């Protein structure tokens, strides 16, 4: 699993599964609404690709790489609390067929990033 500076995670596959990190989910609070891009949407790295709303705030989800959305997680749309309860599992957001090389961080680099944000 790799991470982005925007607090997404993605698996290291050609069709990567994408979600937000537990750090991001904790910072948002209880998620009450998720909007995901439509299947077939072509995105560039850094494009807004979804929206996550909690009681406290709204955050955009950014595409972690160039690619095409090939599947979205309807379960998380129906039950947004999955993002809080299982951000790396049932709370995944969508699957992306990656066409470029994503700019990602290793788990060690991501830990260092969030340590900087919380200190």
């Amino acid at each position, binding site marked *: 699993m790799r991470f982005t500076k925007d607090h997404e995670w993605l698996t290291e596959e050609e069709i990567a599964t994408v979600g937000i990190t537990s750090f991001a989910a*904790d*910072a948002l*609070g*209880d998620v*009450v*609404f998720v*909007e995901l891009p439509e299947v077939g949407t072509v995105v560039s790295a850094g494009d807004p690709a979804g*929206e996550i*709303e*909690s*009681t*406290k*705030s*709204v955050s955009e989800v950014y595409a972690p790489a160039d690619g095409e959305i090939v599947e979205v997680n309807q379960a998380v749309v129906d039950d947004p609390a999955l993002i*809080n309860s299982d951000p790396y599992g049932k709370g995944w957001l969508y699957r992306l067929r990656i066409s470029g090389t994503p700019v990602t961080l290793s788990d060690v680099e991501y830990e260092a990033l969030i340590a900087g944000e919380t200190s």
Partner: protein
Amino acid sequence: MRRTALHHVHQRLGASFTGFAGWEMPVRYGSDVAEHHSVRKSVGLFDLGHMGQIEVSGPEAAAFLDYALVGRLSAVAVGRAKYTMLCHTNGGVLDDLVVYRLEPQRFLVVANAANAPIVIAMLGEYSGGFAVTITALDRALVAVQGPDAVRVVGEHADLRYYGIKAERLAGKDVLLARTGYTGEDGFEIYCANADAEAIWEWAQAAGAQPAGLACRDTLRLEAGMPLYGHELTVRTTPFHAGLGRVVALDKSDFVGAAALRTVTPETELVGLVTKGRRSPRAGHAVLDAVTGAKVGEVTSGAPSPTLGHPIALAYVARDRAGGSLVVDVRGTREAAEIVSLPFYKR
């Protein structure tokens, strides 16, 4: 960042923290929605040690507060409280306050955390010529809020709404007030910093659930209560916020009187409900549904955990044509209906 006397208790409880007005405060302990519901359905427990506490005392304390604030504090009986505001000479709100009369010549002024330095400075500036002493207190404040709050305070629950009295709780000397900012029945307990943990543990042992700042905001919004920096700013007068009733215009003289006597607000604060799942948020434009013209702006908005749909407060033009409004929620137009406040009433 400053920390309250209860910081280590919040850490022990596993709270998430956020920076708020220079203080590191617990934003939630687990689920902010669950904390919200616990306040509505049973009883929640808040650390409000970041609020400003200012004592105003002396032979002319009442006359001074009548001059410095928009309300008539001299008419408040000992043991009672009043919601009031400190305004600029131009009528703009510098802070909204709860003022308790503890003794004939001794008042407790409670200010928003962010505004406490301004309140202390302005009270000092306005106090010239009055025989008063203004003292910033370094003291804790714990709130128990919700329908079961009376069970937490037990035999002491005979206090009237907006009343305050000296009590002994958990073996500590406190000031117990029946006030709050959640729309629920509840109590606020003013105590020494050294006693805050004992009071907190006592309330938790009686069933009060720790609740953070995130749910405090959704609770106050449902209750239609203004938040400084959102509904109230130095650019708005109490009349703009629909709170003209707190201004005692018949007082002979007070800071801001000349401006407040002539103000005719072009906007009014209204409650909006929308039906979609996306919530209006502060800063979103309110538009005329037909013409698309901007007629207002959202000041606070959130999905209401109690009501199950988005709610918002907004300033809208009094002369807006027609009745149908939409809110531009990040590019999506959500139909909005004006409703009377509060959104939620117990």
